[in-house]
């Protein structure tokens, strides 16, 4: 019996390459089916499912407090912001107002998470375009943030700091001084990032005009976060739908119009400056008082549908809960930024070279567990 299917859309000089599931540039178990002619990309087909863990299904089985512990395993580089998203959804559904102190600390930790994530992204991006040194510089700065997290809540990566009703613990006595020390440190190191990579001629040649995404395409593919903003699409959830303490701070939404790989790079670099300024505005004004309000041991959401979105380091994360009034959700759906950003990879990569694909994929900042839930 004939089992092999012959795709007639291929020319004889084109060939397939499996980039992944284990490949240095996919940063996780993502498989890309590339159709290449020489070095020119003809088609990119992402193949997902290699680390699928049914997290959404598991959420339906768990209580709302337990769900928090699953969310940080999604986008593990924005774990705190993921926690916050579910907490906000639950709090809004319950109509609970959490203390100001918790709001401010959540925002500070969220911005620290964003910086840590961007540091890692920057290091890895450098590695993807062949500059290995960036990796270590990014990690050096990220390490300071991880230390702060470790002291605050005991975890360095998969944090569980938020819970419905506020925070799990109060901040550590060293928290404020360490965050301030980090800001001073990072303000002196960020220009180093520019010296090493941003201003490098080879890097600019590799990224400018590469992987261009128009504003229309960005909107139609559902791009969010720095990917959308680099194409001129104003989509910062922190600006349009402020949550926690974000309405108390002033910050710029970084917008670029080029939509190429370099623009996406610049947006993230400039975002790190903005995040630093957000933290600076809040760190001296953490209100005194309680850090949580008491909630029931078994949270039961009222009947209905609830949606909450937040801005993670990668873009808009939405949490959609359908509740039937029981102690666990009837259905819980995450709208992850990575999935829609991955969907536009074919759009921006076709016609480019293999090297371009790696560079533009790096600026999409994919975290595979976030895509493969």
């Amino acid at each position: 019996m004939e089992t092999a299917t012959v795709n007639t859309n291929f020319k004889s000089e084109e060939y397939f390459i499996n980039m992944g599931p284990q490949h240095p540039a996919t940063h996780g178990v993502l498989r890309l089916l590339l159709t290449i002619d020489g070095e020119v990309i003809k088609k990119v087909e992402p193949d997902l499912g290699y680390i699928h863990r049914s997290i959404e299904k598991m959420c339906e089985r768990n209580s709302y407090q337990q769900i928090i512990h699953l969310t940080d395993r999604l986008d593990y580089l924005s774990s705190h912001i993921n926690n916050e998203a579910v907490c906000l959804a639950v709090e809004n559904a319950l109509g609970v107002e959490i203390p100001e102190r918790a709001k401010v600390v959540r925002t500070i930790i969220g911005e620290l998470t964003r910086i840590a994530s961007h540091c890692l992204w920057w290091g890895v991006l450098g590695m993807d375009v062949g500059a290995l040194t960036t990796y270590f510089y990014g990690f050096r700065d990220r390490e300071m943030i991880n230390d702060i997290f470790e002291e605050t809540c005991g975890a360095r990566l998969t944090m569980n700091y938020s819970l419905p009703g506020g925070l799990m613990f109060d901040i550590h006595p060293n928290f404020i001084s360490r965050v301030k020390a980090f800001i001073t440190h990072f303000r002196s190191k960020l220009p180093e990032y520019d010296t090493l990579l941003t201003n490098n001629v080879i890097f600019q040649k590799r990224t400018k005009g590469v992987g261009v995404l128009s504003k229309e395409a960005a909107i139609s593919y559902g791009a969010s976060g720095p990917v959308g903003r680099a194409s001129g699409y104003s989509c910062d959830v922190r600006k349009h739908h402020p949550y926690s303490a974000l309405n108390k701070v002033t910050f710029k939404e970084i917008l670029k119009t080029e939509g190429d790989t370099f623009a996406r790079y610049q947006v993230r670099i400039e975002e790190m400056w903005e995040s630093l300024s957000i933290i600076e505005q809040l760190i001296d004004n953490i209100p005194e008082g309680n850090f949580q309000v008491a909630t029931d041991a078994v949270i039961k959401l009222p009947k209905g549908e609830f949606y909450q979105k937040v801005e993670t380091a990668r873009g808009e994360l939405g949490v959609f809960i359908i509740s039937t009034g029981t102690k666990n959700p009837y259905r819980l759906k995450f709208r992850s930024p990575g999935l829609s950003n991955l969907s536009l990879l074919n759009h921006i990569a076709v016609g480019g070279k293999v090297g371009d694909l790696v560079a533009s994929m790096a600026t999409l900042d994919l975290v595979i567990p976030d895509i493969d839930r």
Partner: protein
Amino acid sequence: MNISLTLSEKTHELLSAIMPPSVASIVEMILIAVVYLTFFAIAGLFLVLLERKVAARFQLRLGPNRVGFQGWFQTVADALKLVSKELTGTVKADKFLYNLAPYFVIITALMALAVIPFAGYFQAFDINIGVLFIIALSSIGVIGILLAGWGSNNKFAMIGAMRSGVQTISYELSVGLSLLTMILITGSLQFSEIVEVQRNGWLIVQGHIPAVLAFMIYMIAGTAETNRAPFDLVEAESELGAGFHTEYSGMKFAYFFLAEFINMFIIASIAVTVFFGAYLSPFGITESLPWLGLFWFLAKALVLLFLMMWFRWTFPRLRIDQLLTLEWKYLLPLNLMNIVLMAVVVWLKLTIQF
């Protein structure tokens, strides 16, 4: 009297006294081969260690200071690991070509070492077409890479090999032409004569502007020819996994690895010989101590090696079309104009001599 000359004459006399001349010359050849192989192995190990240390300084790494005193045993551990690893291979690979490939790469690197004048008489093979010989040899190495890519039956390896083909063959031109520019001053292709000309000033000084240009072109093209960053598209670990040597393990991989470092050393050695007076000391300060020649040679080579490592740990990688654009649209025309400029300089006797 030069110490290396004394040593070789003494050995020659000793061997001639106890065996017939034909046997003696064969034994001498074997001895020289052993000396060079030892040099090859030690230089390879040292360069690996140096690269690790340079990388550590650039990248805030702590690792290479841990094994033995200041990490000096690190490469010994590395070498032991590589030797003891299993030699794996792919089932559907072209076994013959797959196994042959590393030898092409390593043998060319070894052969090229023979003509380099390390010190006064520390040169195994002083032929009158030394420069030509080295250029010819360096183009054989690419065959090894092409065979490795083809023989592995792996698409990533194949892309790496195709890249290697276009890259090495293109940059070969620039290396050759920039060396040719310097040959215009020396009027000889023999390395020992090229060195002698520099007693009146290093060639980079004698040839001033065109020589500096030629040196810059040579260093760029030389880095590209050794497949090192920012021209490491042949390996391109983030794009192709490991490029042409994806399917090689253990000692076979080590051959490629070692050859890369030795090639780097050869590129630096040729630059030292052709631009910086080889084993001659600056301003002849140690002219009365010719055995210091090796020291000066290695010191100058190390500076250039450091430069190449500096490139590697700071620059991102070029894309294949940019790599070819750089060579064919910029370096090659510049090189051709530079040759004319150098010819004018030599013709009008504008060279600087002390």
